[in-house]
Protein backbone atom coordinates (compact mmCIF):
# COMPACT_ATOMS: atom_id res chain seq x y z
CA UNK A 1 0.00 0.00 0.00
CA UNK A 2 1.19 3.49 -0.72
CA UNK A 3 2.12 5.60 2.25
CA UNK A 4 1.89 9.32 2.94
CA UNK A 5 4.53 10.21 5.53
CA UNK A 6 4.55 13.38 7.62
CA UNK A 7 7.74 14.67 9.16
CA UNK A 8 6.56 15.78 12.59
CA UNK A 9 8.50 18.42 14.46
CA UNK A 10 8.83 18.41 18.22
CA UNK A 11 8.74 21.71 20.03
CA UNK A 12 9.48 22.03 23.76
CA UNK A 13 9.00 18.27 24.17
CA UNK A 14 5.50 18.43 22.71
CA UNK A 15 3.90 18.18 19.31
CA UNK A 16 4.47 21.24 17.15
CA UNK A 17 1.03 22.68 16.27
CA UNK A 18 2.06 22.70 12.61
CA UNK A 19 2.01 18.93 12.58
CA UNK A 20 -1.75 19.04 13.15
CA UNK A 21 -2.06 21.08 9.98
CA UNK A 22 0.08 18.52 8.14
CA UNK A 23 -2.15 15.77 9.53
CA UNK A 24 -5.14 17.73 8.24
CA UNK A 25 -3.50 17.97 4.81
CA UNK A 26 -2.45 14.32 4.93
CA UNK A 27 -5.92 13.11 5.88
CA UNK A 28 -7.39 15.02 2.96
CA UNK A 29 -5.05 13.16 0.61
CA UNK A 30 -5.41 9.69 2.12
CA UNK A 31 -9.16 9.82 2.59
CA UNK A 32 -9.47 10.26 -1.16
CA UNK A 33 -6.84 7.70 -2.14
CA UNK A 34 -7.13 5.09 0.61
CA UNK A 35 -3.37 5.28 1.16
CA UNK A 36 -1.78 4.83 4.55
CA UNK A 37 -1.02 7.92 6.65
CA UNK A 38 1.90 7.96 9.02
CA UNK A 39 3.94 10.37 11.11
CA UNK A 40 7.69 10.31 11.72
CA UNK A 41 9.12 11.89 14.87
CA UNK A 42 12.77 12.39 15.67
CA UNK A 43 14.53 13.36 18.86
CA UNK A 44 16.30 12.17 21.95
CA UNK A 45 13.14 10.72 23.48
CA UNK A 46 9.83 11.14 21.67
CA UNK A 47 7.61 8.48 23.26
CA UNK A 48 5.15 10.98 24.77
CA UNK A 49 5.01 13.01 21.61
CA UNK A 50 4.50 9.87 19.56
CA UNK A 51 1.49 9.00 21.71
CA UNK A 52 0.15 12.51 21.28
CA UNK A 53 0.55 12.18 17.51
CA UNK A 54 -1.16 8.78 17.52
CA UNK A 55 -4.23 10.31 19.15
CA UNK A 56 -4.94 12.17 15.92
CA UNK A 57 -5.55 8.94 14.11
CA UNK A 58 -2.71 8.30 11.67
CA UNK A 59 -2.32 4.65 10.67
CA UNK A 60 1.10 4.55 12.27
CA UNK A 61 3.68 6.65 14.07
CA UNK A 62 7.39 6.04 13.61
CA UNK A 63 9.89 7.27 16.12
CA UNK A 64 13.61 7.67 15.74
CA UNK A 65 15.22 8.13 19.13
CA UNK A 66 18.92 8.90 19.39
CA UNK A 67 20.90 11.13 21.78
CA UNK A 68 22.45 12.92 18.80
CA UNK A 69 19.00 13.96 17.57
CA UNK A 70 18.14 15.85 20.74
CA UNK A 71 18.66 19.20 19.07
CA UNK A 72 18.13 19.97 15.41
CA UNK A 73 21.30 19.40 13.44
CA UNK A 74 20.67 19.40 9.70
CA UNK A 75 23.43 16.91 8.81
CA UNK A 76 22.43 14.35 11.45
CA UNK A 77 18.68 14.75 10.94
CA UNK A 78 19.20 14.40 7.21
CA UNK A 79 21.17 11.19 7.64
CA UNK A 80 18.48 9.78 9.93
CA UNK A 81 15.66 10.87 7.64
CA UNK A 82 17.38 9.42 4.58
CA UNK A 83 17.69 6.06 6.33
CA UNK A 84 14.08 6.18 7.55
CA UNK A 85 12.79 6.96 4.05
CA UNK A 86 14.80 4.04 2.65
CA UNK A 87 12.96 1.79 5.10
CA UNK A 88 9.46 3.29 4.92
CA UNK A 89 9.56 4.07 1.19
CA UNK A 90 6.79 6.71 1.37
CA UNK A 91 5.14 7.70 -1.89
CA UNK A 92 4.54 11.19 -0.50
CA UNK A 93 6.53 13.06 2.15
CA UNK A 94 4.94 16.14 3.75
CA UNK A 95 7.04 18.63 5.71
CA UNK A 96 6.29 22.03 7.20
CA UNK A 97 7.71 25.03 5.38
CA UNK A 98 9.51 25.74 8.66
CA UNK A 99 13.19 26.37 9.32
CA UNK A 100 13.64 22.60 9.53
CA UNK A 101 11.62 21.87 6.41
CA UNK A 102 13.29 24.62 4.41
CA UNK A 103 16.74 23.31 5.32
CA UNK A 104 16.15 19.56 5.08
CA UNK A 105 13.74 19.50 2.14
CA UNK A 106 16.05 20.38 -0.76
CA UNK A 107 18.94 18.32 0.58
CA UNK A 108 16.75 15.28 1.23
CA UNK A 109 15.19 15.60 -2.22
CA UNK A 110 18.68 15.43 -3.70
CA UNK A 111 19.61 12.38 -1.63
CA UNK A 112 16.39 10.55 -2.49
CA UNK A 113 16.81 11.54 -6.16
CA UNK A 114 13.42 13.19 -5.91
CA UNK A 115 12.03 16.65 -6.58
CA UNK A 116 10.54 19.00 -4.03
CA UNK A 117 7.87 21.69 -4.26
CA UNK A 118 8.23 24.21 -1.44
CA UNK A 119 5.76 26.40 0.42
CA UNK A 120 2.57 24.77 -0.86
CA UNK A 121 -0.84 26.23 -0.03
CA UNK A 122 -2.83 23.38 -1.51
CA UNK A 123 -2.27 19.72 -2.27
CA UNK A 124 -4.29 17.61 -4.66
CA UNK A 125 -3.87 14.40 -6.61
CA UNK A 126 -3.84 14.43 -10.40
CA UNK A 127 -6.91 12.42 -11.41
CA UNK A 128 -5.17 11.06 -14.51
CA UNK A 129 -1.80 9.84 -13.33
CA UNK A 130 -2.21 9.87 -9.55
CA UNK A 131 0.76 12.20 -9.00
CA UNK A 132 0.77 14.76 -6.21
CA UNK A 133 0.09 18.35 -7.29
CA UNK A 134 1.50 21.12 -5.12
CA UNK A 135 0.03 24.62 -5.45
CA UNK A 136 2.20 27.57 -4.52
CA UNK A 137 2.20 31.32 -5.09
CA UNK A 138 5.03 32.48 -7.36
CA UNK A 139 6.32 35.81 -8.69
CA UNK A 140 5.87 37.41 -5.31
CA UNK A 141 2.24 36.29 -5.16
CA UNK A 142 1.33 37.59 -8.61
CA UNK A 143 0.60 34.11 -9.88
CA UNK A 144 -0.51 30.76 -8.52
CA UNK A 145 1.37 27.81 -9.90
CA UNK A 146 0.54 24.13 -9.67
CA UNK A 147 3.60 21.88 -9.85
CA UNK A 148 3.44 18.20 -10.53
CA UNK A 149 5.68 16.32 -8.12
CA UNK A 150 8.25 13.97 -9.62
CA UNK A 151 10.31 11.17 -8.21
CA UNK A 152 9.60 7.98 -6.29
CA UNK A 153 9.05 10.01 -3.13
CA UNK A 154 6.92 13.04 -3.97
CA UNK A 155 8.04 15.79 -1.62
CA UNK A 156 6.44 19.06 -0.56
CA UNK A 157 6.84 21.60 2.19
CA UNK A 158 3.53 23.09 3.34
CA UNK A 159 2.90 26.67 4.37
CA UNK A 160 1.63 27.20 7.91
CA UNK A 161 -1.82 28.54 8.79
CA UNK A 162 -3.31 27.29 5.54
CA UNK A 163 -4.63 23.80 6.21
CA UNK A 164 -7.16 23.41 9.01
CA UNK A 165 -5.63 21.34 11.82
CA UNK A 166 -6.71 17.72 12.17
CA UNK A 167 -9.07 16.84 14.95
CA UNK A 168 -8.35 13.94 17.23
CA UNK A 169 -9.25 10.62 15.67
CA UNK A 170 -9.06 6.90 16.30
CA UNK A 171 -5.92 6.37 18.30
CA UNK A 172 -5.52 2.88 16.95
CA UNK A 173 -2.29 3.48 15.06
CA UNK A 174 0.76 1.51 16.05
CA UNK A 175 3.93 3.22 17.30
CA UNK A 176 7.05 1.70 15.79
CA UNK A 177 10.73 2.45 16.31
CA UNK A 178 13.13 2.91 13.47
CA UNK A 179 16.82 2.41 14.16
CA UNK A 180 19.28 4.62 12.40
CA UNK A 181 23.05 4.60 12.27
CA UNK A 182 24.40 8.06 12.84
CA UNK A 183 27.52 9.39 14.49
CA UNK A 184 29.02 12.77 15.29
CA UNK A 185 31.38 12.69 12.33
CA UNK A 186 28.38 13.09 9.99
CA UNK A 187 27.88 16.61 11.26
CA UNK A 188 30.00 19.00 9.26
CA UNK A 189 28.96 22.06 11.21
CA UNK A 190 30.16 22.77 14.70
CA UNK A 191 27.64 24.69 16.77
CA UNK A 192 29.48 27.38 18.73
CA UNK A 193 26.50 28.98 20.44
CA UNK A 194 22.81 29.68 20.10
CA UNK A 195 21.87 33.22 20.93
CA UNK A 196 18.24 33.58 21.88
CA UNK A 197 16.53 36.69 20.69
CA UNK A 198 13.11 37.86 21.66
CA UNK A 199 11.11 35.77 19.28
CA UNK A 200 8.29 37.61 17.70
CA UNK A 201 5.32 35.26 17.42
CA UNK A 202 3.46 37.55 15.03
CA UNK A 203 1.28 34.70 13.84
CA UNK A 204 -0.20 34.36 17.33
CA UNK A 205 -1.20 38.01 17.81
CA UNK A 206 -4.83 39.16 17.71
CA UNK A 207 -3.82 42.54 16.38
CA UNK A 208 -0.71 43.38 14.37
CA UNK A 209 0.40 46.95 13.74
CA UNK A 210 2.95 47.17 10.96
CA UNK A 211 5.18 49.99 9.83
CA UNK A 212 6.90 50.51 6.50
CA UNK A 213 9.14 52.90 4.62
CA UNK A 214 6.62 55.68 5.18
CA UNK A 215 7.64 55.90 8.84
CA UNK A 216 10.79 57.66 7.69
CA UNK A 217 13.04 56.32 10.45
CA UNK A 218 13.11 53.83 13.31
CA UNK A 219 11.65 56.33 15.78
CA UNK A 220 8.32 55.87 14.03
CA UNK A 221 8.19 52.34 15.44
CA UNK A 222 8.25 53.71 18.99
CA UNK A 223 4.98 55.44 18.19
CA UNK A 224 3.59 52.14 16.88
CA UNK A 225 4.69 50.44 20.13
CA UNK A 226 2.71 53.04 22.07
CA UNK A 227 -0.29 52.39 19.88
CA UNK A 228 0.13 48.65 20.48
CA UNK A 229 0.16 49.27 24.20
CA UNK A 230 -3.01 51.38 24.03
CA UNK A 231 -4.80 48.67 22.00
CA UNK A 232 -3.42 45.90 24.20
CA UNK A 233 -5.74 46.90 27.01
CA UNK A 234 -8.75 45.81 24.97
CA UNK A 235 -7.46 43.35 22.40
CA UNK A 236 -5.14 40.98 24.25
CA UNK A 237 -2.10 40.18 22.20
CA UNK A 238 -1.10 43.20 20.09
CA UNK A 239 2.26 43.12 18.31
CA UNK A 240 4.30 45.37 16.06
CA UNK A 241 5.48 44.09 12.68
CA UNK A 242 6.94 45.69 9.58
CA UNK A 243 7.39 45.51 5.82
CA UNK A 244 10.57 44.30 4.14
CA UNK A 245 11.57 47.89 3.42
CA UNK A 246 11.78 48.56 7.16
CA UNK A 247 14.06 45.52 7.55
CA UNK A 248 16.22 46.49 4.57
CA UNK A 249 16.66 49.94 6.06
CA UNK A 250 17.75 48.39 9.35
CA UNK A 251 14.87 49.81 11.42
CA UNK A 252 13.51 46.44 12.53
CA UNK A 253 14.92 42.91 12.70
CA UNK A 254 13.76 40.48 10.04
CA UNK A 255 11.68 38.38 12.45
CA UNK A 256 9.22 41.29 12.47
CA UNK A 257 8.75 41.12 8.74
CA UNK A 258 5.29 40.38 7.34
CA UNK A 259 5.21 39.04 3.82
CA UNK A 260 6.24 36.34 1.45
CA UNK A 261 9.79 36.10 2.81
CA UNK A 262 8.74 36.96 6.36
CA UNK A 263 5.83 35.74 8.43
CA UNK A 264 2.43 35.10 6.88
CA UNK A 265 -0.34 36.08 9.26
CA UNK A 266 -4.13 36.41 9.47
CA UNK A 267 -4.90 38.33 12.69
CA UNK A 268 -8.30 39.73 13.67
CA UNK A 269 -7.10 43.25 12.91
CA UNK A 270 -4.15 44.36 10.81
CA UNK A 271 -3.08 47.99 10.87
CA UNK A 272 -0.65 49.04 8.11
CA UNK A 273 1.09 52.35 8.76
CA UNK A 274 3.24 53.93 6.05
CA UNK A 275 3.17 50.76 3.97
CA UNK A 276 2.49 51.14 0.26
CA UNK A 277 1.48 47.51 -0.23
CA UNK A 278 4.01 45.75 -2.44
CA UNK A 279 2.54 42.45 -3.56
CA UNK A 280 5.04 40.47 -1.52
CA UNK A 281 3.79 42.25 1.61
CA UNK A 282 0.12 41.82 0.72
CA UNK A 283 0.60 38.08 0.39
CA UNK A 284 1.57 38.02 4.05
CA UNK A 285 -1.45 39.83 5.50
CA UNK A 286 -4.31 39.84 3.03
CA UNK A 287 -6.23 37.16 4.91
CA UNK A 288 -6.49 39.33 8.04
CA UNK A 289 -10.11 39.63 9.15
CA UNK A 290 -10.10 43.44 9.14
CA UNK A 291 -7.45 45.60 7.52
CA UNK A 292 -6.86 49.24 8.41
CA UNK A 293 -4.39 51.35 6.42
CA UNK A 294 -2.83 54.72 7.19
CA UNK A 295 -0.83 56.29 4.38
CA UNK A 296 -0.33 59.72 2.84
CA UNK A 297 -0.76 58.45 -0.72
CA UNK A 298 -4.43 57.71 -1.51
CA UNK A 299 -3.52 55.80 -4.67
CA UNK A 300 -1.23 53.25 -3.04
CA UNK A 301 -2.00 49.54 -3.20
CA UNK A 302 -2.56 49.02 0.50
CA UNK A 303 -5.92 50.84 0.34
CA UNK A 304 -7.10 48.37 -2.33
CA UNK A 305 -7.02 45.53 0.19
CA UNK A 306 -8.09 47.59 3.21
CA UNK A 307 -11.49 47.77 4.90
CA UNK A 308 -10.79 51.17 6.44
CA UNK A 309 -8.39 53.82 5.21
CA UNK A 310 -6.98 57.06 6.55
CA UNK A 311 -5.12 59.33 4.14
CA UNK A 312 -2.96 61.34 6.49
CA UNK A 313 0.55 61.63 7.88
CA UNK A 314 0.89 58.97 10.59
CA UNK A 315 2.66 61.47 12.85
CA UNK A 316 -0.56 63.46 12.92
CA UNK A 317 -3.07 60.69 13.25
CA UNK A 318 -1.35 58.05 15.41
CA UNK A 319 -0.83 60.28 18.49
CA UNK A 320 -4.47 61.43 18.20
CA UNK A 321 -5.48 57.80 17.96
CA UNK A 322 -3.51 56.81 21.07
CA UNK A 323 -5.01 59.69 23.04
CA UNK A 324 -8.54 58.84 21.97
CA UNK A 325 -8.08 55.12 22.67
CA UNK A 326 -6.92 55.90 26.19
CA UNK A 327 -10.06 57.98 26.73
CA UNK A 328 -12.52 55.51 25.28
CA UNK A 329 -11.26 51.97 25.80
Amino acid at each position, binding site marked *: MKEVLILGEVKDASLDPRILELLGAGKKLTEASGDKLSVLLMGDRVEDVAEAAASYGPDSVYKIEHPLLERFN*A*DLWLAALEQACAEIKPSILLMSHS*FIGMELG*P*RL*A*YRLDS*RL*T*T*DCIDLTI*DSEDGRL*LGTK*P*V*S*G*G*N*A*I*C*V*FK*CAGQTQMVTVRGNVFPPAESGNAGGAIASINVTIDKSMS*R*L*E*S*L*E*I*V*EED*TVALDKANVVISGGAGLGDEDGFEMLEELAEALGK*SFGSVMVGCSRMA*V*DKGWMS*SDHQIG*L*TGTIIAPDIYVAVGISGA*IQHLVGMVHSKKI*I*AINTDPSC*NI*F*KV*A*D*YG*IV*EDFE*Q*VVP*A*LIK*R*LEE*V*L
Partner: protein
Amino acid sequence: MTELNIIICVKQIPDPEAPLSDVSIDAENLEVVVDAPQVISPFDENALEAAIQLKEELDGKVTVLSMGKKLSDSVLRKALAAGADELILLEDNGFEKLDSHSTATVLAAAIKKIGSFDLVLAGRQAGDWDSGQVGLILGEMLGLPCISLAREITVEDGSVIVKKTVPEGYERVKAKLPALITVSNEVGELRYISRTRMLKMMRGGDIPAWTAEEIGVSDDAIEKMNIASLTTPPDMTRDCQFLEGSPDQQAAALVDVFVSLR
Protein backbone atom coordinates in the same frame (compact mmCIF):
# COMPACT_ATOMS: atom_id res chain seq x y z
CA MET B 1 45.76 31.35 4.55
CA THR B 2 46.24 32.93 1.19
CA GLU B 3 43.54 34.50 -0.84
CA LEU B 4 39.88 33.65 -0.54
CA ASN B 5 38.26 32.32 -3.66
CA ILE B 6 34.51 32.96 -3.66
CA ILE B 7 31.99 31.82 -6.25
CA ILE B 8 28.59 33.42 -6.10
CA CYS B 9 25.53 32.28 -8.03
CA VAL B 10 23.09 34.99 -9.06
CA LYS B 11 19.85 34.87 -10.97
CA GLN B 12 18.56 37.45 -13.38
CA ILE B 13 14.82 37.99 -12.96
CA PRO B 14 12.18 40.61 -13.85
CA ASP B 15 12.00 43.23 -11.10
CA PRO B 16 10.01 41.54 -8.30
CA GLU B 17 8.87 44.97 -7.04
CA ALA B 18 7.02 45.59 -10.30
CA PRO B 19 3.42 46.66 -9.66
CA LEU B 20 0.64 44.17 -10.20
CA SER B 21 -0.50 46.04 -13.30
CA ASP B 22 2.76 45.09 -15.05
CA VAL B 23 2.26 41.39 -14.47
CA SER B 24 0.15 39.10 -16.63
CA ILE B 25 -0.24 35.37 -16.91
CA ASP B 26 0.19 33.45 -20.12
CA ALA B 27 -1.71 30.36 -19.00
CA GLU B 28 -1.21 28.57 -22.29
CA ASN B 29 2.56 28.82 -22.33
CA LEU B 30 2.67 28.58 -18.53
CA GLU B 31 4.58 31.81 -18.20
CA VAL B 32 4.40 34.81 -15.92
CA VAL B 33 4.92 37.82 -18.18
CA VAL B 34 6.38 40.79 -16.35
CA ASP B 35 6.69 44.08 -18.19
CA ALA B 36 9.52 45.35 -16.01
CA PRO B 37 13.30 45.70 -16.29
CA GLN B 38 15.50 42.73 -15.46
CA VAL B 39 17.40 42.85 -12.17
CA ILE B 40 19.59 40.65 -10.02
CA SER B 41 17.33 38.70 -7.64
CA PRO B 42 17.28 40.56 -4.27
CA PHE B 43 18.71 37.82 -2.00
CA ASP B 44 21.46 37.23 -4.56
CA GLU B 45 22.36 40.91 -4.25
CA ASN B 46 22.63 40.38 -0.49
CA ALA B 47 24.92 37.41 -1.14
CA LEU B 48 26.99 39.51 -3.55
CA GLU B 49 27.43 42.17 -0.90
CA ALA B 50 28.57 39.53 1.60
CA ALA B 51 31.06 38.16 -0.95
CA ILE B 52 32.52 41.56 -1.73
CA GLN B 53 32.87 42.41 1.96
CA LEU B 54 34.78 39.17 2.58
CA LYS B 55 37.04 39.89 -0.36
CA GLU B 56 37.75 43.41 0.87
CA GLU B 57 38.60 42.11 4.30
CA LEU B 58 40.77 39.15 3.36
CA ASP B 59 41.78 39.71 -0.26
CA GLY B 60 40.75 37.24 -2.86
CA LYS B 61 38.58 36.84 -5.85
CA VAL B 62 34.83 36.95 -6.40
CA THR B 63 33.52 35.06 -9.42
CA VAL B 64 29.89 35.53 -10.38
CA LEU B 65 27.96 32.76 -12.14
CA SER B 66 24.58 33.25 -13.73
CA MET B 67 22.53 30.80 -15.75
CA GLY B 68 19.79 31.37 -18.30
CA LYS B 69 18.65 30.93 -21.86
CA LYS B 70 19.44 34.52 -22.78
CA LEU B 71 21.07 36.72 -20.19
CA SER B 72 21.59 40.44 -20.25
CA ASP B 73 25.18 41.12 -19.44
CA SER B 74 24.29 44.76 -18.81
CA VAL B 75 22.15 43.66 -15.83
CA LEU B 76 24.81 41.31 -14.54
CA ARG B 77 27.71 43.71 -15.07
CA LYS B 78 26.30 45.46 -12.04
CA ALA B 79 28.01 42.70 -10.03
CA LEU B 80 31.35 43.73 -11.53
CA ALA B 81 30.64 47.38 -10.86
CA ALA B 82 29.90 46.48 -7.23
CA GLY B 83 33.32 44.87 -6.88
CA ALA B 84 33.22 41.31 -8.24
CA ASP B 85 36.26 40.31 -10.29
CA GLU B 86 34.84 38.01 -12.87
CA LEU B 87 31.46 37.30 -14.43
CA ILE B 88 30.75 34.06 -16.26
CA LEU B 89 27.44 33.51 -18.03
CA LEU B 90 26.03 30.01 -18.43
CA GLU B 91 23.94 30.43 -21.54
CA ASP B 92 22.21 27.77 -23.56
CA ASN B 93 18.90 27.31 -25.33
CA GLY B 94 18.24 24.45 -22.94
CA PHE B 95 18.76 26.59 -19.83
CA GLU B 96 15.18 27.75 -19.68
CA LYS B 97 12.58 27.13 -16.93
CA LEU B 98 14.78 24.47 -15.39
CA ASP B 99 13.73 22.87 -12.14
CA SER B 100 15.85 23.47 -9.04
CA HIS B 101 17.69 20.18 -9.32
CA SER B 102 18.66 20.89 -12.94
CA THR B 103 19.71 24.45 -12.20
CA ALA B 104 21.99 23.11 -9.48
CA THR B 105 23.31 20.51 -11.96
CA VAL B 106 24.34 23.27 -14.39
CA LEU B 107 25.91 25.42 -11.66
CA ALA B 108 27.78 22.43 -10.21
CA ALA B 109 29.19 21.60 -13.64
CA ALA B 110 30.37 25.19 -14.12
CA ILE B 111 31.93 25.27 -10.65
CA LYS B 112 33.80 22.03 -11.39
CA LYS B 113 35.10 23.61 -14.58
CA ILE B 114 36.33 26.61 -12.61
CA GLY B 115 38.09 24.21 -10.29
CA SER B 116 39.28 25.60 -7.00
CA PHE B 117 37.23 27.66 -4.59
CA ASP B 118 36.78 28.25 -0.85
CA LEU B 119 33.19 29.41 -0.65
CA VAL B 120 30.09 29.13 -2.79
CA LEU B 121 27.41 31.68 -1.96
CA ALA B 122 23.81 31.91 -3.13
CA GLY B 123 20.76 33.90 -2.12
CA ARG B 124 18.35 32.00 0.12
CA GLN B 125 15.71 31.95 -2.63
CA ALA B 126 15.01 33.63 -5.95
CA GLY B 127 12.49 36.42 -6.22
CA ASP B 128 10.54 34.86 -9.09
CA TRP B 129 9.74 31.24 -8.17
CA ASP B 130 10.63 31.54 -4.47
CA SER B 131 11.61 27.91 -4.31
CA GLY B 132 14.66 28.21 -2.05
CA GLN B 133 16.30 24.99 -3.18
CA VAL B 134 19.12 25.57 -5.66
CA GLY B 135 21.78 26.63 -3.13
CA LEU B 136 21.31 23.65 -0.83
CA ILE B 137 21.05 21.12 -3.66
CA LEU B 138 24.22 22.61 -5.14
CA GLY B 139 25.97 22.13 -1.80
CA GLU B 140 24.90 18.47 -1.77
CA MET B 141 26.06 17.95 -5.35
CA LEU B 142 29.47 19.42 -4.58
CA GLY B 143 29.68 17.47 -1.31
CA LEU B 144 30.16 20.63 0.74
CA PRO B 145 29.11 21.54 4.27
CA CYS B 146 25.85 23.49 3.83
CA ILE B 147 24.95 26.52 5.92
CA SER B 148 21.62 28.20 5.30
CA LEU B 149 20.11 31.60 6.11
CA ALA B 150 23.38 33.38 6.87
CA ARG B 151 23.18 36.86 8.36
CA GLU B 152 26.92 37.32 8.99
CA ILE B 153 29.92 35.50 7.55
CA THR B 154 33.52 35.57 8.79
CA VAL B 155 36.47 33.50 7.61
CA GLU B 156 39.48 32.57 9.70
CA ASP B 157 42.12 29.84 9.67
CA GLY B 158 40.57 27.80 6.91
CA SER B 159 37.13 27.82 8.49
CA VAL B 160 34.01 29.86 8.05
CA ILE B 161 31.95 31.07 11.00
CA VAL B 162 28.38 31.98 10.19
CA LYS B 163 25.60 33.52 12.18
CA LYS B 164 22.59 31.68 10.80
CA THR B 165 18.98 32.48 11.60
CA VAL B 166 17.23 29.80 13.69
CA PRO B 167 13.77 29.88 15.30
CA GLU B 168 15.20 30.92 18.69
CA GLY B 169 17.31 33.76 17.29
CA TYR B 170 20.62 32.93 15.69
CA GLU B 171 23.19 30.19 15.91
CA ARG B 172 26.92 30.62 15.36
CA VAL B 173 28.20 27.64 13.40
CA LYS B 174 31.64 26.79 12.14
CA ALA B 175 32.57 24.70 9.11
CA LYS B 176 35.79 23.87 7.33
CA LEU B 177 36.32 25.44 3.94
CA PRO B 178 35.24 24.89 1.25
CA ALA B 179 31.59 25.36 2.15
CA LEU B 180 28.28 26.45 0.69
CA ILE B 181 26.29 29.25 2.28
CA THR B 182 22.83 30.56 1.46
CA VAL B 183 22.46 34.20 2.38
CA SER B 184 19.51 36.08 3.82
CA ASN B 185 18.72 39.80 3.70
CA GLU B 186 20.17 40.57 7.16
CA VAL B 187 23.70 40.71 5.70
CA GLY B 188 22.68 44.03 4.21
CA GLU B 189 21.77 45.58 0.91
CA LEU B 190 24.15 45.69 -2.02
CA ARG B 191 26.29 48.82 -1.83
CA TYR B 192 25.53 51.93 -3.82
CA ILE B 193 27.11 51.93 -7.24
CA SER B 194 27.82 55.27 -8.85
CA ARG B 195 26.62 55.93 -12.36
CA THR B 196 30.17 56.60 -13.53
CA ARG B 197 31.33 53.25 -12.25
CA MET B 198 28.35 51.51 -13.81
CA LEU B 199 28.98 53.14 -17.19
CA LYS B 200 32.64 52.23 -17.04
CA MET B 201 31.75 48.59 -16.45
CA MET B 202 29.26 48.66 -19.32
CA ARG B 203 32.12 49.55 -21.64
CA GLY B 204 34.31 46.82 -20.18
CA GLY B 205 35.60 43.77 -21.98
CA ASP B 206 33.68 40.77 -23.25
CA ILE B 207 31.95 38.54 -20.74
CA PRO B 208 32.63 34.83 -21.20
CA ALA B 209 29.57 32.66 -21.83
CA TRP B 210 29.70 28.89 -21.45
CA THR B 211 27.23 26.58 -23.16
CA ALA B 212 25.89 23.28 -21.83
CA GLU B 213 28.38 21.44 -24.01
CA GLU B 214 31.30 23.49 -22.74
CA ILE B 215 30.56 22.54 -19.15
CA GLY B 216 29.65 18.97 -20.00
CA VAL B 217 25.92 19.06 -19.22
CA SER B 218 23.99 16.73 -21.50
CA ASP B 219 20.35 17.24 -22.46
CA ASP B 220 19.16 14.30 -20.41
CA ALA B 221 20.83 15.66 -17.25
CA ILE B 222 18.43 18.58 -17.05
CA GLU B 223 14.64 18.85 -16.86
CA LYS B 224 12.20 21.71 -17.03
CA MET B 225 9.90 22.61 -14.18
CA ASN B 226 6.88 20.34 -14.23
CA ILE B 227 4.08 22.90 -14.23
CA ALA B 228 0.51 21.67 -14.44
CA SER B 229 -1.16 25.08 -14.46
CA LEU B 230 -0.52 28.75 -13.90
CA THR B 231 -3.30 31.14 -12.94
CA THR B 232 -3.89 34.62 -11.56
CA PRO B 233 -4.31 34.79 -7.80
CA PRO B 234 -7.79 35.20 -6.34
CA ASP B 235 -8.96 38.80 -6.13
CA MET B 236 -7.71 40.37 -2.91
CA THR B 237 -9.42 43.73 -3.16
CA ARG B 238 -11.90 45.00 -0.58
CA ASP B 239 -14.10 48.09 -0.54
CA CYS B 240 -12.09 50.58 1.44
CA GLN B 241 -14.09 52.99 3.56
CA PHE B 242 -12.03 56.16 3.92
CA LEU B 243 -12.29 57.98 7.24
CA GLU B 244 -12.36 61.71 6.50
CA GLY B 245 -11.80 64.91 8.41
CA SER B 246 -9.03 66.33 10.58
CA PRO B 247 -6.53 63.94 12.19
CA ASP B 248 -8.55 64.15 15.42
CA GLN B 249 -11.79 63.34 13.59
CA GLN B 250 -10.10 60.49 11.70
CA ALA B 251 -8.71 59.14 14.97
CA ALA B 252 -12.14 59.33 16.60
CA ALA B 253 -13.75 57.50 13.68
CA LEU B 254 -11.08 54.82 13.79
CA VAL B 255 -11.56 54.33 17.52
CA ASP B 256 -15.26 53.76 16.78
CA VAL B 257 -14.15 51.05 14.35
CA PHE B 258 -11.96 49.48 17.02
CA VAL B 259 -14.81 49.58 19.52
CA SER B 260 -17.10 47.83 17.03
CA LEU B 261 -14.49 45.10 16.50
CA ARG B 262 -13.80 44.53 20.17
